[in-house]
């Protein structure tokens, strides 16, 4: 299995699988979030269902692994690609028609998303699953778990701040950029593309990214415009 590290297509294979896995996660996550707008109680039920239960923990570890591998590979690939580019840069670098800005800046966008993610995890994960894990599994009994499964409360408290809403909207926009290229690029790297399907997959990519991100931004938008 060394080819997964040693060959360019192997590396891209790993990148694509982890990326597409994360797309799936994002889609689920966004769908769950949307539940909050319909019914905060139902949303909390989901939070309860996940929490520090064994399956949720395994899934979280898997998710961390996906993120970790995706990020590490991204950095390795970028470093290799910089090296392959050589030391001299073009004095005039033209833009190519039809080449998206996102595709040229995936690492940059990815890093922006990572920063956003850290903030997001401080806002939510550190107050929810991490508390529960600390309390129930690691035996840190001083941790207060009373609000740990109350996702609705955390949402309300974070998004009551309009600046947070705006930062979240920007973060989700970065995610949208990343996904619009990421999904079809992943499919392409896995070899699922041909003359007929390439344009279709590109459209699908835009649809999936847009749906996911619309579901995500629904909450900050609702708070920002004071509908809730």
């Amino acid at each position, binding site marked *: 299995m060394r*080819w997964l590290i*040693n*060959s*360019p*297509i*192997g*590396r*891209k*294979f790993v990148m694509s699988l982890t990326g597409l896995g994360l797309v799936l996660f994002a889609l689920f996550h966004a769908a769950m979030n949307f539940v909050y707008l319909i019914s905060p109680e139902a949303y909390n039920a989901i939070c309860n269902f996940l929490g520090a239960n064994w399956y949720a923990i395994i899934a979280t570890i898997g998710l961390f692994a996906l993120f970790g591998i995706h990020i590490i590979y991204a950095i390795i*690939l970028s470093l*290799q*690609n910089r*090296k*392959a*580019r*050589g*030391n*001299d*840069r*073009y*004095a*005039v*670098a*033209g*833009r*190519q*028609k*039809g*080449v*998206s800005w996102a*595709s*040229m800046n*995936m690492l940059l966008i990815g890093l922006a998303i990572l920063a956003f993610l850290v903030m997001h995890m401080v806002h939510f994960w550190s107050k929810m699953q991490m508390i529960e894990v600390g309390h129930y599994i690691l035996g840190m009994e001083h941790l207060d778990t009373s609000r740990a499964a109350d996702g609705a409360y955390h949402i309300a408290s974070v998004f009551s701040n309009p600046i947070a809403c705006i930062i979240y909207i920007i973060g989700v926009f970065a995610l949208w950029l990343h996904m619009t*290229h990421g999904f*079809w*690029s992943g499919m*392409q*790297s*896995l*070899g*699922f*593309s*041909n*003359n007929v399907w*390439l344009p279709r997959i590109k459209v699908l990519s835009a649809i999936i990214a847009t749906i996911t991100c619309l579901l995500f931004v629904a909450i900050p938008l609702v708070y920002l415009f004071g509908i809730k």
Partner: protein
Amino acid sequence: MDKDINIKIKVWRQDGPKVKGRFETYELKNISQGSSFLEMLDILNEQLINEGGSPVVFDHDCREGICGMCSLYINGHPHGPDEDITTCQLHMRKFKEGETITIEPWRSAGFPVIKDLMVDRSAYDKIIQAGGYVSVNTGGTPDANSILIPYEDAEMAMDAAACVGCGACAATCKNGSAMLFVSAKVSQFALLPQGRPEAARRAKAMVAKMEELGFGNCTNTGACEVECPKSISITNIARLNREYLCAKFKD
């Protein structure tokens, strides 16, 4: 109608592979827009020789867009601002009176500069030598019509085979990747029954050689496809990925 124009040429001069390069700017007067870009460089060189300077070195040969020898990164684009052509087919009518034209060599670790605008593209030959062929000796082949090839497959193979090996794909790729070049050759043979018996071996060998020679990883920006003078499609890259992954999973 074609007019005569005055232009400035900002061109990369570099005396050798290890020497630091620099830009030099030259003025050219009364260049007919009907002349080709390389003819404009011929005129510049004639001018330089007459002034006692040294002419600009650049690769070129057939001057009809098929040999793949010419290169040049012109105003930020390999083979210049026009579409679907090589530099030798570019004409001066694509430029305006008074314009400054910036000419750079291919800049990619895989293509080190030899002198001025001339680069070393022998890496592409090495990739082909690693497996870009069907293993047949001369003679003893079956009758040409004993192999039936569906029209669509032959056409797609021809689309891929149109690659001229100029290097614009790797030169324009922000990742310095040669995937479009490799995939074109792999696709041509993968689509034809003659190429199938060693398709897996070919894909693995060519990709390994590409890696060994220091070309980058494809991130599917698609810039190569846009700049390719022969419009080789990136769906060939998907086919290469497919061939390679299937080969690896079979191992």
